């Protein structure tokens, strides 16, 4: 039971890390209907830029805001050069263009900062909480708890941003109906820049946390793969969905790997979340919090 | 059937039914008729056509159609309507093709005049029209329709499907196998083969009776002239009642045995033309003109590079294209190379998109064709030629021989045709292709054909030094100016109208000191021209009065003046002053005939005030005119019309002589 609890908690905390990445996808999809395949590349780019600047001697307090500025420049550039000419194109085309973007960003990141693996210390120790370990025999990483905290703060901030600020409400309007949004005078271009900027910010946070965990390297782009089942489960358009989905995916994949894996040769974490999400979708095709798809004829 | 057909025929190919039977036995498997229907080109071989025609003839006969009866044929170019002509001829009857777009009242005259008992029509629309006038034409006893669509509830006994009749005929033919062959055998070349009504600018239409002999002669001379054969294809899209279509799609097809192709519908003619790619083509100048206009307009939208390429090679073609087509020597080697390149890049593709890649010979007739227009087609390698003729002459008086094309003449008299010019300039014609008579109009017949057997065409013209006939105007329109020199208004008007910017022109000068003109601009061409120059305009009236437009038109008028100055007989007819009318001349306002010919007298009366101003030297004149809109409402248009002087040139003939 104690072990079960440990696995469960560990899973939930991992799940939060997935949610963090999934959040970036959700933001962009929600506001512009673009399935942004480049989110992983953005995570990589953001983390690498921050660490690169840090390694050049800047303090993290300076490097991170500077990186954020760069991410905003990137968002503006993407909107101007890539998205604007493709307004009103099919979803799949926009999806594809983000794949082109992925290559470009990956190449850019490595051209600027090189391909070597870098270390990132955020000053949070990644060790089990002694208090818990001693008393309950459960190993819960300090780092994971901090990361979870940051993730929750981020989600809360986004929730407030969406519901309380003018821009946020505009974003929601755009998500609901492009035409309507345009007709009440919200410039779509501006919205896209903001949304890609915010997604860049989320990417930066995710990149820093994941980078501190595993090192800042190309493999950061792979975290996107962890986020996909979260998206399916939580729905492409729901911020809470990304969080809840992440928790479910994290916990269940760990439980499956630990308790089911040994019987089938292990390594099932790669596909288990997808199968889980798939089974879930069969029951609820629009995801946990996704908007119900009404088939009208 | 071939056996009996052969018996009937002997060697005499002197009537159309015999020609058909001959084709059926000589090339029974070859395609005689095609029609775009249900998405594909349905084809009938000569033997199938012969069988269908026989059946139709037998069916008609079973319904009581007799030798000497007239058969009205109304509809678009449908294979069965063509066959119906031959079916009538088999029985010794006379097909009377009628314009399918005529309204019921217009039809009733012909129906009555020709004492029509039988009518074969295309579809419900035509049936309805006939029913409308049935009261007035009590003789009309049978209406047979080709297309059964919508005909289910017409339960009048005198309305029958052609299908039924053909089926009936098949049975009849089977039970009386010798009947029809006998009927065909009775046919004589001097029988009337067809009756074509001429619209006529004045008075009631006249039925022109043409015999088998005259049409076959006319057709044969054309076929021999251009060596047409069974492998040729023609697109049959002109009204069947027009002599041109009858000559090309019926008579010549029967003589030469080539394939006629009926388009799917009026809207799809251009597409169908492109699909079929005929080898032999006939169209009035208006069609060629519209085509050229679309070519030019479509090219305007092309990229600058392509446009430049197009114009460059069109210039090359203008320089040497026609000469190369005529096989004339003296074309520079470089030009030949350029032309070959242009053929790959422009002319070939252009012929292709126009559907004219395969054309060996194309003819135009029915009205004068502008030299520029004519030259354009010849220069891109289309062997376009003019012919001259009328309904009364089976449309075959003069033809332009290959290699001797002059842009302003209609060619040399066709073989077996005698042409002479009367003292008053009128063109007189004699030959086997002349009409037998005007139906039930002995007076008119006598008036048209003089005692020597010459037919008075009503056209004024002259032979040039090479023996080519040049038509200048209708004889009755030719007048004299105050100084006694020749005034040929149509000639001048046509010259003006050959410029694409000018749609209509009316010139005045008979009995006057100098020539003045009303101009109608071509909305499409001038509008396009204006748009390219960023000239904003709100409509025809506004555009017509723009200074830029006036300048443009003046240039056109002056060009035409310059050309006229070269002509010794007409150099006095140069236009001195002109104005651009504030409205388009319109048949709805009775200013034009339905065939878009200017009603000179009417216009002169209606715009008297403008004419006065032209001759009084005023610089502008206010006018207000009532117009009728398409939906029947009327309204007023008014404008202050400017009047402009055009430069004239001294006669050039003196120099030329020197």
């Amino acid at each position, binding site marked *: 039971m104690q072990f079960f609890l440990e696995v469960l908690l560990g899973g939930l905390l991992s799940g939060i890390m997935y949610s963090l990445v999934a959040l970036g996808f959700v933001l962009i999809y929600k506001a512009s209907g673009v399935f942004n395949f480049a989110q992983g590349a953005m995570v990589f780019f953001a983390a690498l830029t921050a660490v690169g600047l840090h390694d050049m001697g800047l303090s993290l307090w300076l490097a991170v805001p500077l990186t954020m500025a760069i991410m905003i420049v990137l968002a503006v550039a993407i909107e101007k050069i890539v998205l604007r000419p493709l307004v009103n194109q099919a979803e799949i085309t926009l999806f594809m263009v983000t794949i082109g973007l992925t290559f470009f960003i990956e190449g850019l990141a490595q051209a600027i900062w090189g391909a070597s693996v870098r270390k990132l210390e955020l000053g949070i120790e990644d060790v089990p909480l002694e208090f818990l370990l001693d008393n309950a025999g459960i190993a819960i990483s300090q780092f994971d708890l901090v990361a979870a905290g940051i993730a929750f703060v981020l989600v809360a901030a986004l929730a407030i941003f969406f519901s309380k600020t003018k821009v946020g409400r505009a974003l929601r309007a755009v998500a609901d109906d492009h035409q309507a949004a345009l007709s009440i005078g919200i410039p779509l271009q501006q919205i896209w820049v903001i949304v890609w900027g915010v997604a860049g910010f989320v990417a930066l946070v995710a990149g820093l946390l994941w980078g501190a965990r595993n090192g800042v390297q190309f493999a950061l782009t792979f975290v996107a793969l962890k986020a996909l089942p979260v998206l399916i489960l939580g729905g492409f358009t729901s911020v809470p969905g990304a969080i809840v989905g992440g928790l479910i995916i994290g916990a269940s994949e760990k439980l499956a790997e630990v308790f089911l894996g040994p019987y089938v040769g292990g390594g099932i974490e790669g596909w288990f979340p997808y199968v889980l999400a798939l089974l879930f979708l069969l029951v609820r095709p629009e995801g946990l919090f996704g908007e119900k798809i009404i088939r*009208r*004829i | 059937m071939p056996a009996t057909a052969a018996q009937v025929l002997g060697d005499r190919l002197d009537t159309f039914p015999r020609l058909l039977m001959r084709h059926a036995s000589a090339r029974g498997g070859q395609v005689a008729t095609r029609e775009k*229907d*249900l*998405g*594909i080109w349905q084809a009938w071989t000569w033997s199938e056509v012969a069988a269908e025609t026989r059946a139709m003839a037998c069916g008609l006969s079973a319904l009581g159609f007799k030798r000497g009866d007239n058969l009205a044929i109304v509809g678009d170019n449908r294979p069965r309507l063509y066959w119906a002509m031959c079916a009538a001829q088999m029985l010794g009857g006379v097909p009377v093709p009628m314009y399918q777009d005529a309204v019921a009242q217009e039809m009733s005259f012909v129906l009555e005049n020709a004492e029509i008992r039988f009518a074969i029509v295309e579809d419900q629309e035509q049936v309805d029209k006939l029913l409308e006038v049935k009261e007035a034409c009590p003789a009309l006893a049978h209406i047979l329709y080709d297309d059964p*669509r*919508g005909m*289910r*509830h017409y339960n009048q006994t005198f309305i029958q499907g052609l299908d039924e009749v053909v089926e009936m005929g098949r049975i009849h033919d089977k039970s009386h196998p010798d009947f029809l062959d006998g009927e065909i055998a009775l046919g004589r070349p001097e029988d009337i083969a067809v009756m074509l009504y001429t619209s006529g600018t004045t008075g009631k239409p006249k039925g022109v009776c043409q015999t088998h002999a005259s049409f076959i002669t006319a057709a044969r001379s054309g076929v021999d002239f251009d060596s047409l054969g069974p492998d040729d294809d023609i697109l049959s899209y002109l009204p069947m009642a027009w002599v041109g279509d009858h000559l090309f799609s019926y008579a010549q097809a029967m003589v030469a045995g080539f394939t006629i192709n009926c388009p*799917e*519908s009026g*809207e*799809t003619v251009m*597409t169908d033309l492109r699909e079929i790619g005929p080898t032999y083509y006939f169209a009035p100048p208006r069609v060629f003109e519209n085509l050229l206009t679309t070519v030019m307009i479509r090219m305007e939208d092309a990229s600058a590079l392509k446009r430049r390429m197009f114009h460059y090679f069109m210039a090359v073609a203008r320089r040497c294209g026609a000469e190369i087509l005529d096989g004339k020597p003296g074309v520079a080697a470089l030009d030949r190379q350029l032309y070959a390149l242009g053929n790959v890049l422009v002319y070939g593709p252009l012929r292709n998109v126009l559907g004219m890649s395969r054309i060996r010979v194309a003819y135009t007739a029915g009205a004068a064709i502008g030299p520029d227009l004519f030259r354009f087609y010849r220069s891109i390698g289309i062997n376009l030629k003019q012919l001259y003729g009328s309904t009364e002459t089976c449309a075959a008086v003069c033809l332009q021989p290959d290699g001797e094309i002059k842009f302003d003449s209609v060619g040399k008299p066709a073989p077996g045709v005698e042409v002479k010019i009367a003292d008053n300039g009128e063109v007189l014609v004699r030959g086997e292709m002349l009409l037998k008579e005007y139906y039930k109009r002995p007076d008119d017949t006598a008036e048209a054909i003089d005692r020597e057997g010459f037919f008075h065409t009503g056209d004024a013209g002259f032979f040039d030094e090479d023996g080519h006939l040049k038509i200048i105007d209708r004889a009755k329109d030719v007048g004299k100016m105050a100084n006694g020199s020749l005034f040929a208004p149509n000639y001048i008007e046509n010259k003006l109208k050959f410029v694409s910017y000018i749609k209509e022109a009316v010139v005045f000068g008979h009995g006057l000191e100098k020539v003045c003109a009303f101009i109608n601009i071509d909305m499409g061409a001038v509008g396009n021209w204006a748009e390219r120059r960023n000239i904003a305009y709100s409509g025809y009236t506004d555009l017509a009065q723009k200074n830029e437009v006036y300048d443009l038109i003046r240039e056109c008028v002056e060009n035409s003046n310059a050309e006229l100055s070269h002509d010794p007989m007409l150099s006095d007819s140069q236009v001195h002053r002109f104005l651009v009318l504030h409205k388009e001349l319109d048949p709805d306002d009775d200013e034009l005939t339905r065939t878009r010919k200017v009603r000179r007298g009417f216009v002169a009366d209606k715009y008297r005030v403008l004419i006065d101003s032209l001759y009084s030297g005023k610089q502008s004149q206010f006018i207000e005119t009532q117009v009728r809109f398409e939906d029947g409402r009327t309204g007023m248009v008014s404008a202050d019309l400017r009047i402009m002087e055009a430069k004239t040139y001294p006669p050039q003939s003196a120099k030329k002589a020197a």
Partner: protein
Amino acid sequence: MDTGRKIGDVILSFENISLSFGGVKALTNIGFDVREHEIRAIIGPNGAGKSSMLNVINGVYHPQEGEIIFHGKHRRDMNTYESAKSGIARTFQNIALFKGMSVLDNIMTGRNLKMKSNFLLDAIYWGPARREEIEHRKKVEEIIDFLEIQHIRKTPVGRLAYGLQKRVELGRALAAEPSILLLDEPMAGMNVEEKQDMCRFILDVNDQLGTTIVLIEHDMGVVMDISDRVVVLDYGKKIGDGTPDEVRTNRDVINAYLGVAH
């Protein structure tokens, strides 16, 4: 074939049909019948449940209550495949053509139930598959001819004007050679001329092929002109049923609907 149509027996009838979506009632206790060869109109204001009714007829929606009697068989609901199979074809209020295909292909799809070929034969495209394709092409060409859309035969439907799209959609439905044709606002958004054409086509279909037609239409003039009997729905309830004249004088109908117009 000869002397026009004869209205036959009841082939389809509904009893107490009720349909709701998550608590919202779309249809309540609807009952009416359709006779063979007739033109039956369903009218009513927006949101009256007309389209829902059509969707019940061809099995897109499954009513929670009621009974459908089709060709004498009692059933709770229909399903799309079976209804197509048993000769019910339809058009849609918002044109539901296959945008990526040409007019010809769109109409060809209408013949799918008559085609026996399978994907293997299709892949080889030789012999039976090809013959079948050509045979059905002929039928489709007749429909194209009937609807006078020859000139747009190979145009992708997405590029066509609205009125023509409606016509193509009718063509697709006709391609199935249906015994019952459901038309959902076939003339919506058309100009007068297009409406006249459409009317003519509908009448011709009914007349020449004997097809039973169930029609939803807003244009009262058209409905009263061409239909044999009319059902009037309002807020999911039936408020009138009868010949155009009867309906025209029905008090409830006048109050609910016609009253606005006249």
